[in-house]
């Protein structure tokens, strides 16, 4: 495996460099280069997957990157069951999205730059999931953050896009700060940042009493990167970027980095029940919180953004209760159906001349059938309708959550109801019912080209059958996914204690969640297709709640008032007082001192020859004195 494994991340890097340098020349052909690197990386990942299935794992270094005293950071990868799943998702879904982008970015003058950034992102993400030490993880972590910034603000002429990019980057940095401190704590106690050594020495951290602190700080990074409360505010704004970016980065890969990180560090996290409890709480709260905002939003992409935040909450519930395999399972199925939803939304926007307001859509089913059907496949998956993939993964999480604490299950199921409701609302309002499309847009409605619809179809198939790898024993499956990942989570299993849930109870819980999902769909049907319940009447009756939700709980405004503006004011004071007055004053003072001296020295230049002669004599005297004194 050693021989080809390095190509997997390095090929996209090469693609990024080529497109970065020659992008302007190549224009749209840059897309083919990017796709080529992705395809080859995917094939190689498949090959590695084959090897891992046979039990071959790999943890080795290519070269020594940094050696500084005791600090030792190699450039190396760890390919085990967990990372291979992530690699397949990144390269596979990534490849499909690259293919889609060729169609989506057709005609855009910055296409070369786009594909360079996209490949660069893949490289960073792969380093994140493949790296075998904390520094490479951090490298990938920051790298994906950077690429996210670049791609969100891709159309940088648009002010809202640049601001959104900046918001994403800065909010991430807040999380990364905590993350870095967590890394420092680990290094200062263990003297190493390599996974293999950290996992072997977790007892040292326990004895030092820093396990909770370190794991909590690492989780802070995850809160920023995976858009959990309170650092989620960047994700909805990130929808300013091109839709493939939203699909790849903000649905399938980058935002899942936090979940991956917690899963990867399961030996550490499982030693701190406090941190686990925090993770579960944050995940649960975020799941519900975001879902409520998705209920009333009118922008097709933003509904999906809040949905992503909510589903990430579910994944954190999964890893938080100790069901790491379940969390990763949901990560995978989510990658399929959320990427599909975003790409589908992009396809709808493509047909609708870039309109995103769902109130201006409707009745599109007959006009863009492929998009509609694939979109609906994802809708059923995310709502948790069996036998679609989302059902299996979400159910696994909910079952384990109940074993952790029933209240978590209650909120999780409530969230499932909300999820199916808002997704159904989105589908019904966009594709069915009366057409509210503006006439001049209506003329141009057309299905997207093959290069865009084929990825949609592939992802739809995956969204449907993707769950079959993890069918639990209760339903007659062999739970293949969980068994595959078992070796990675062995260390944690020893520390976790799952309450026992009786078989009957499990079936019952499963049944309730399916009922909730169906209920949400039916409710949306009544409101938006049959219109027996009027959405507007509801909105008016619960007028204040509606406004609160529609304005996203005014969180952005609160942040601005209490955090951002005070910091800006402080910075302004620093600039005006400290920098302008104090520091410039000191620098100017130095200058003034020299000018003062020069006033004095200028007197020497008298132009009067005899004074020069006098100075000559003074010099001679000095020399003579020196010799005289020597002789003494």
């Amino acid at each position, binding site marked *: 495996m050693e021989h080809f494994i390095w190509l997997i991340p390095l090929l996209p890097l090469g693609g990024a460099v080529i497109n970065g340098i020659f992008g302007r020349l190549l224009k749209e052909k840059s897309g083919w280069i990017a796709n080529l690197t992705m395809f080859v990386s995917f094939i190689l990942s498949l090959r590695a997957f084959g090897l891992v299935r046979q039990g071959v794992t790999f943890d080795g270094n290519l070269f020594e990157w940094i050696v500084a005293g005791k600090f030792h950071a190699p450039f190396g990868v760890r390919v085990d069951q967990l990372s291979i799943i992530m690699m397949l998702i990144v390269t596979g879904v990534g490849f499909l999205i690259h293919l889609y982008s060729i169609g989506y970015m057709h005609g855009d003058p910055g296409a070369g730059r786009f594909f360079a950034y996209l490949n660069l992102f893949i490289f960073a993400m792969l380093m994140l999931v493949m790296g075998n030490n904390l520094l490479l993880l951090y490298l990938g972590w920051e790298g994906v953050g950077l690429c996210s910034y670049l791609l969100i603000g891709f159309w940088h002429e648009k002010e809202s896009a640049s601001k959104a990019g900046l918001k994403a980057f800065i909010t991430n940095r807040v999380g990364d700060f905590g993350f870095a401190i967590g890394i420092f704590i680990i290094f200062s106690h263990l003297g190493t940042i390599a996974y293999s050594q950290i996992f072997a020495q977790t007892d040292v951290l326990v004895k030092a009493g820093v396990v909770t602190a370190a794991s909590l700080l690492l989780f802070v990074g995850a809160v920023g990167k995976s858009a959990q409360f309170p650092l989620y505010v960047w994700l909805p704004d990130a929808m300013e970027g091109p839709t493939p970016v939203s699909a790849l980065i903000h649905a399938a890969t980058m935002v899942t980095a936090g979940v991956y990180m917690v899963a990867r560090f399961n030996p550490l996290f499982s030693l701190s029940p406090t941190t686990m409890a925090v993770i579960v709480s944050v995940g649960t709260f975020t799941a519900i919180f975001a879902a409520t905002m998705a209920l009333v939003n009118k922008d097709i992409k933003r509904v999906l953004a809040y949905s992503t935040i909510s589903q990430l909450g579910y994944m954190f519930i999964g890893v938080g209760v100790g069901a790491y395999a379940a969390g990763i399972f949901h990560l995978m199925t989510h990658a399929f159906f959320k990427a599909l939803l975003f790409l589908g939304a992009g396809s709808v926007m493509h047909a609708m001349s870039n309109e995103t307001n769902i109130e201006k859509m409707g009745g599109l089913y007959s006009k863009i059938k492929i998009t509609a059907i694939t979109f609906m496949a994802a809708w059923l998956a995310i709502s948790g309708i069996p036998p679609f993939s989302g059902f299996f993964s979400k159910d696994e999480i909910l079952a384990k959550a109940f074993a952790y604490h029933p209240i978590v299950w209650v909120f999780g199921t409530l969230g499932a109801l909300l999820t199916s409701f808002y997704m159904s609302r989105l589908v019904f309002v966009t594709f069915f019912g009366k057409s509210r499309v503006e006439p001049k847009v209506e003329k141009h409605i057309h299905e997207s080209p093959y290069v865009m619809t084929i990825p949609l179809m592939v992802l739809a198939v995956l969204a449907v059958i993707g769950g079959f790898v993890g069918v639990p024993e209760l339903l007659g499956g062999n739970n293949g996914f969980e068994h595959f990942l078992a070796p990675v989570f062995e260390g944690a299993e020893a520390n976790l204690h799952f309450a026992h849930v009786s078989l009957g109870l499990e079936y019952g819980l499963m049944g309730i969640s399916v009922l909730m999902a169906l209920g949400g769909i039916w409710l949306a049907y009544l409101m938006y297709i049959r219109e027996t319940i009027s959405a507007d009447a509801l909105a008016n009756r619960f007028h204040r709640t509606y406004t609160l939700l529609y304005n996203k709980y005014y969180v952005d405004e609160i942040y601005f008032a209490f955090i951002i503006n005070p910091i800006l004011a402080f910075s302004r004071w620093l600039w005006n007082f400290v920098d302008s007055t104090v520091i410039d004053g000191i620098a100017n003072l130095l200058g003034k001192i020299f000018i003062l001296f020069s006033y004095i020295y200028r007197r020497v*230049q*008298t132009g009067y*020859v005899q004074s020069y002669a006098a100075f000559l004599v003074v010099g001679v005297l000095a020399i003579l004195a020196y010799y005289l004194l020597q002789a003494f």
Partner: protein
Amino acid sequence: MHGIPISYFLILSAILFSLGVIGVIIRRNVIIVFMSIELMLNAVNLTFVAFSNHLNNIEGQIFVFLVMVVAAAEVAVGLGLIVAMFRLRETVHLDDIRLLKW
């Protein structure tokens, strides 16, 4: 019967040299400055001759000879310069000739 100690000559020469230096620094009239320079040259000549006697070496006196020749040439050219400058400026006072400070 001893004779004159050489050091007396050296001291005399030192006195004359110092007076010459004072003259160069103090006087404003350029001709008199020139004369002070001649005074300095003479003091040095005296030193040379004194040492030539002490070391019983003729080179000292040869050198004095050459110094005198050079002094003569220098005076000739220098006074020519002063005449030319006088024609230009109508003055021989050094403080009016301050071109070095523009």
